[in-house]
């Protein structure tokens, strides 16, 4: 089942062509990995797919349109309240096992601004998981994570795909073995 159809997509910022004539389909039950060097337009392409930047070259499937979780460069949490309170005000459940796997159990009652970059990132990934949506759009989900957390995230990504979900992510770190690649630079 095709979730997003991208045909002849071009994008230009201030006269600089980021990418041109890109076409691909995104199907359910797969991981799509957008790869490219810094400034190649990975985040921009994700924003186009997520609908933040409107484009006529993108046709999203109506069925999956309302079941999307997006994680950009920023985490989306309120800094002045605790991790637990952040989850509570969003009405999301806190899976004890997942929090344990991500090493965040002991930080539940810490103010969000007191967490490290990697901990904040893991918390933001937990929000995506707890939202229970079919499509995950993730911008650099492995950034700032330690080796153990990267393994845990990879496992969760695989589980989501097995549960008929779809993941589109921008990544310039280690390559995922099971993903379909969307390359934005020839020399990647």
């Amino acid at each position: 089942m095709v979730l997003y159809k991208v045909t002849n997509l071009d994008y230009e910022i201030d006269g600089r062509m980021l990418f041109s004539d890109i076409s691909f389909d995104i199907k359910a039950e797969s991981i799509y990995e957008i790869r490219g060097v810094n400034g190649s337009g990975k985040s921009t392409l994700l924003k186009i797919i997520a609908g933040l930047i409107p484009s006529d070259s993108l046709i999203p499937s109506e069925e999956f349109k309302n079941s999307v979780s997006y994680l950009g460069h920023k985490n989306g949490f309120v800094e002045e309240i605790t991790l637990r309170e952040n989850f509570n005000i969003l009405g999301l459940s806190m899976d004890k096992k997942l929090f344990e796997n991500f090493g965040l159990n002991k930080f539940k009652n810490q103010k969000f601004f007191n967490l490290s970059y990697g901990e904040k990132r893991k918390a933001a990934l937990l929000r995506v998981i707890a939202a229970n949506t079919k499509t995950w759009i993730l911008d650099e989900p492995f950034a700032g994570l330690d080796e153990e957390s990267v393994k845990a995230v990879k496992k969760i990504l695989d589980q989501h795909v097995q549960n008929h979900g779809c993941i589109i992510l921008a990544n310039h770190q280690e390559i995922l073995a099971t993903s379909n690649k969307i390359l934005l630079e020839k020399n990647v």
Partner: protein
Amino acid sequence: MFKDLRREFGLIFLIPKNIYLPLSIFGIIFLIFFLLDFDESLTYVSSFIASFITIFIISESTFKDDYATGYIEQKLCETESLIFYLFAKYLANLILVYLPMTLLAFLINGFNDNYLLELIFAYIVMLSTLYFFFNLGSAISIKRNNSLNALLIIPLLIPFIILVEEIFIAGKIMPNLNFLMAYFIFSATFINYAIIQILKIQSK
């Protein structure tokens, strides 16, 4: 809708400065007018000026944190519309900030007017309209964090100021209250629509 209400009310309760900061600013400005010993007929003018400055100051940060943390970006991708988000923000502020502010204003001005209910209603409508207009300024200035941009919307408030003057100073409640209601409906619909479009552009 329920999720947005839970978040906005939750945030106001969890971060108490969201309530006491506007009420303190409002109270302090009133106190200044009191110490300056303004003429009694100017009490409504004082409360209007106090409300105007308070809402201008607090609305500067209406969207600032949600924009900086990426919450608005997430919201746009996941729900497509910000209508319920804006409505929840308004409702939380109306109940926990603007109603107490109205009570405070009438406690100082006195409850002995012949058209008390109409005046209280007009006051709440006035605060709500100011809130929507200044939120537009806040959305415009969100990226550059420059509240001077928010001042650009003040010319839009000139008819509103004339109506408020007619109601509270001249005491001509009708038909000015009806016109004020029309202005409120305009701000609740068109201005909020403009805010959503601006937030979408700013989040690109």
